[in-house]
């Protein structure tokens, strides 16, 4: 690589650095946060808009991001105790999924019903980003209310996959994953209810972590399914995920389901990765039939590397996982039908008046919800309302809760013989935009490998496993650990990542094709 300037601080280089590398350069004052933040804002301006743009961002927070960056730079320049006290990631910019509320920027949840709404309060994770003085680049696109696996259900148009602009970036957090994959942000926040962080990570060649349920506060994440939702990191490296997880995690008194104990040292786990003597369990039910051949091949490669590195590969069976998808599609819509009841046009957001007839509150609510929600949201509200109805509750919601318990027991049993479980993150690589839009069931099947972790509350990490032979698109490898053992994911993930990168000769994203209209990358590639 020919460096364009000796310090390696030209924009094209900067945006390709990991967050950990950026943090080191900022701390060493080789580069300023304003330079870094501006490089990302320029990149967003170059690749995100237009007909063939990535469309990862719904809102770009230029002014505030630069102000925070300048503040960090000023503190660093002044030196002393305040500079010493700066967080490791201070000055490293980040993008936030638009399901997470932020003061000073709109929050839409990807829905027309919240168009133009500004939250009067910050989500706890956003408050923690602010406390760490991380400039927030903007809000990223998502399937409406996080309901989808392709980001095509956004009311603001789909996000494109940087690997192939005609393909989906996964969902619901396609915006965050695509932003990170297209070097529009070094870090992003996502939310994962059934795979919305991990599956987009898999299909965009990035890293995504769904923490243990309760280890990151949900306060300020617009709820889809309260018992399943979890905020987590979206990054390009395992270490970056650990760094970000460490910033946003830990107890929050505003979230009753938040775990009381302090967070383990996840960054240390990522830095001292080791799999020697570790038992890694292949979940029999989560590979093979129904999984693309290229996905299966990359999965087997990963197993071979882990074995070489000294891990013991065992096979476990989780027989109840076959019911997980069905149970998920009862519990999630049930909770969602109740969580989304508040969007009624009475207090905030869109209000639509009926065209004729009496102007009663019921009819205003009805007209608002009819106009404000998209088809997938309506589908899930109807499904959930039905599942909770008197006479059906036991058969649907009640049975689904029983399956949930059985899935938890499968995990408990599996973790008696394995320290960490492993599977492909998604059964296929990125499909084409529009391909599954009219087939909800095919869309739902994308999450078959990620859903069990949400039902059981256990943590999961997806990292790039290479490219599928048949289509040259990224494949994701999923690691799962027992609840509260998120550190194991980082320990194993860091090892697997370094073995794979050694094999590839660099990060997988370096193999991504060029994006149109990107002078920064053109320069980089023209070397």
């Amino acid at each position: 690589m020919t460096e364009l300037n000796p310090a390696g601080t030209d924009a094209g280089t900067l945006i390709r650095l990991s967050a950990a590398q950026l943090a080191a350069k900022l701390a060493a004052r080789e580069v300023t946060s304003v330079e870094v933040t501006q490089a990302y804002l320029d990149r967003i301006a170059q690749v995100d808009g237009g007909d063939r743009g990535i469309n990862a961002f719904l809102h770009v927070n230029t002014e505030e991001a630069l102000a925070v960056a300048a503040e960090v730079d000023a503190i660093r320049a002044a030196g002393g105790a305040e500079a010493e006290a700066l967080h490791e990631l201070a000055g490293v910019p980040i993008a936030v999924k638009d399901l997470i509320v932020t003061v000073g920027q709109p929050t839409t949840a990807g829905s027309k019903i919240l168009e133009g709404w500004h939250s009067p309060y910050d989500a706890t994770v956003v408050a923690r980003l602010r406390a760490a003085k991380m400039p927030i680049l903007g809000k990223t696109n998502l399937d409406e209310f996080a309901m989808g696996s392709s980001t095509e259900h956004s009311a603001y148009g789909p996000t494109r996959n940087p690997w192939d602009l005609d393909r989906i970036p996964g969902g619901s957090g396609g915006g965050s994953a695509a932003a990170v994959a297209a070097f529009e942000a070094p870090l992003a926040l996502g939310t994962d209810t059934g795979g919305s962080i991990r599956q987009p990570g898999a299909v965009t060649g990035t890293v995504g972590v769904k923490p243990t349920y309760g280890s990151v506060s949900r306060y300020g994440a617009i709820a889809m399914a309260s018992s399943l939702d979890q905020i987590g990191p979206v990054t390009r490296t395992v270490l970056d995920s650990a760094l970000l997880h460490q910033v946003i995690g830990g107890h929050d008194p505003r979230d009753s389901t938040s775990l009381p104990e302090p967070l383990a040292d996840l960054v240390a786990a990522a830095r001292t990765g080791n799999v020697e003597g570790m038992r890694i369990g292949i979940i029999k039910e989560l590979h093979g039939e129904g999984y693309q051949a290229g996905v299966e091949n990359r999965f087997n490669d990963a197993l071979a590397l882990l074995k070489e590195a000294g891990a013991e590969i065992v096979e476990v069976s989780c027989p109840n996982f076959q019911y997980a998808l069905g149970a998920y599609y009862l519990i999630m819509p049930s909770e969602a039908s109740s969580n989304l009841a508040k969007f009624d046009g009475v207090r905030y957001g869109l209000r639509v008046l009926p065209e004729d007839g009496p102007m009663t509150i019921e009819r205003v609510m009805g007209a608002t919800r009819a106009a404000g929600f998209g088809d997938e949201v309506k589908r899930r509200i109807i499904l959930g309302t039905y599942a909770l109805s008197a006479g059906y509750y036991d058969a649907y919601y009640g049975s689904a809760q029983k399956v949930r318990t059985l899935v938890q027991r499968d995990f408990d049993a599996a973790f008696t013989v394995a320290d960490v479980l492993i599977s492909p993150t998604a059964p296929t690589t990125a499909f084409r935009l529009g391909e599954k839009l009219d087939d909800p069931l095919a869309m739902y099947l994308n999450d078959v490998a990620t859903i069990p972790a949400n039902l059981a509350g256990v943590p999961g990490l997806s990292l790039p496993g290479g490219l599928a032979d048949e289509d040259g698109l990224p494949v994701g490898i999923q690691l799962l650990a027992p609840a509260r053992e998120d550190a194991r994911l980082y320990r194993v993930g860091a090892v697997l990542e370094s073995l794979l990168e050694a094999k590839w000769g660099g990060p997988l994203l370096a193999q991504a094709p060029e994006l149109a209209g990107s002078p920064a990358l053109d320069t980089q590639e023209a070397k």
Partner: protein
Amino acid sequence: MSTDAILTFEEAMEKYDPVLGFEVHVELNTKTKMFSSAPNVFGDEPNTNVNEVDLGMPGVLPVLNRAAVESSIKIGLALNCKIAEACRFARKNYFYPDTPKNFQTSQYDEPIAYDGYLDVELSDGTVFRVEIERAHMEEDAGKLTHMGGATGRIQGADFSLVDYNRAGVPLVEIVTKPIEGAGSRAPELAKAYVAAVREIVKNLGVSDAKMERGNVRCDANVSLRPHGRERFGIRSETKNVNSLRAVEHAVRYEIQRHAAVLDSGIPVVQETRHWHEDTRTTTSGRPKSDADDYRYFPEPDLVPVVASREWVEELRATLPEPPAARRKRLQADWGYSDLEFRDVVNAGVMDEIEETIAAGASASVARKWWMGEIVGRAKNADVDPGQLGVEPATIVELSKMVEDGKINNKMATEVLDHVLAGEGTPAEIVEKRGLAVVSDDGPLLEAIDAALAAQPDVADKIRGGKVQAIGAIVGAVMKATRGQADTGRVRELIMERLGVNA
């Protein structure tokens, strides 16, 4: 609004046996709301005691108020209930703008307290045991004010205003088991039961317990069955009956109405009824049937409430003396006879008398004012005595003025009326209206001399030892001074004038 046919109460009782049931909502007086840190304060400007949680903003989560749980456990213990070791909240889903989330967070099938009882004393001292099914925690809804209509109800209104200050205020709902066997004392029992619940929560200090402010609200269920039949009849539920007298009246009215319906051969409609204080009748609300589907499910944003046995016992140890013991103690302290004390209890002014004594009045003065003056006024105004707005300090001030001879008793009761009319404190009223006992002996002596001169025969009788005749002279003097003289002093002066020893 059509008028329902009713039988007389006596006819109804001849033919039918009433079964009652009550749901009493108690607003807890915690500093903050059930699930948010917004203040729990009554009477402030609309929508000022709210934060993002109370408004159901996107992304918010509830956090359970520990003090509210403690209060709920105390209520459960005072009602002789079992306390659940672990219990959960549920969501009750329905679309209505008084509920910002369009669901109410409430306990459903796992109440914190269950299987208790309350012994209720009736006016003649009979004790009636009311079985308690459960006491559960929930959040209050906001308050809707329907504007533009004639009735203040939603029908015919042009628009509605909503105040979310009350949204999220912690409530405990106390539900009885069906109450059988009250017979013709059912209305009285209804009043006595609600009064007993109010007394308990007030005594515990967990609620301000002011019915006029909605701190204690009663839904009264009534059904009738022919004498001798075991199966219950179809019930009506009269909502928000918010004074003790209204509870008694509403139950009586519903018994009379049900009896007329049953007599006509038509089944009673299972429905909610609205109570109208002005006409003392109920009107049909909405049909309440099992078809109401609230799609209850466990609230996933809250973890189960775990009440360790140690915690429950700690709370039990802090409970104040039970009402029965308290009554016994108060009666002894105040030195009232059994009859006097029962009258006080039945009139519903025991707490008021206690407060008045605490404010500095003697037990006999407090009783004299409440039983002799205020209870009668409340009856005329058709409200509970406590709702008249008489402050203990007012009574203390009035009685002090009488003792000091500044005003006499007759004037004091007039001053009370002026206080109730909102004219100010007793001192201000006495000052403003120039009410003062004539204490300068000069004008009194003139009046006495005039009276004695006008009635020489009476004067002679008194001189001759018939002291009881003095009333005629005193009366004349009082008349002459327009009631502003102290009768005691007038009597003394007359005796002095006539040279008679008192």
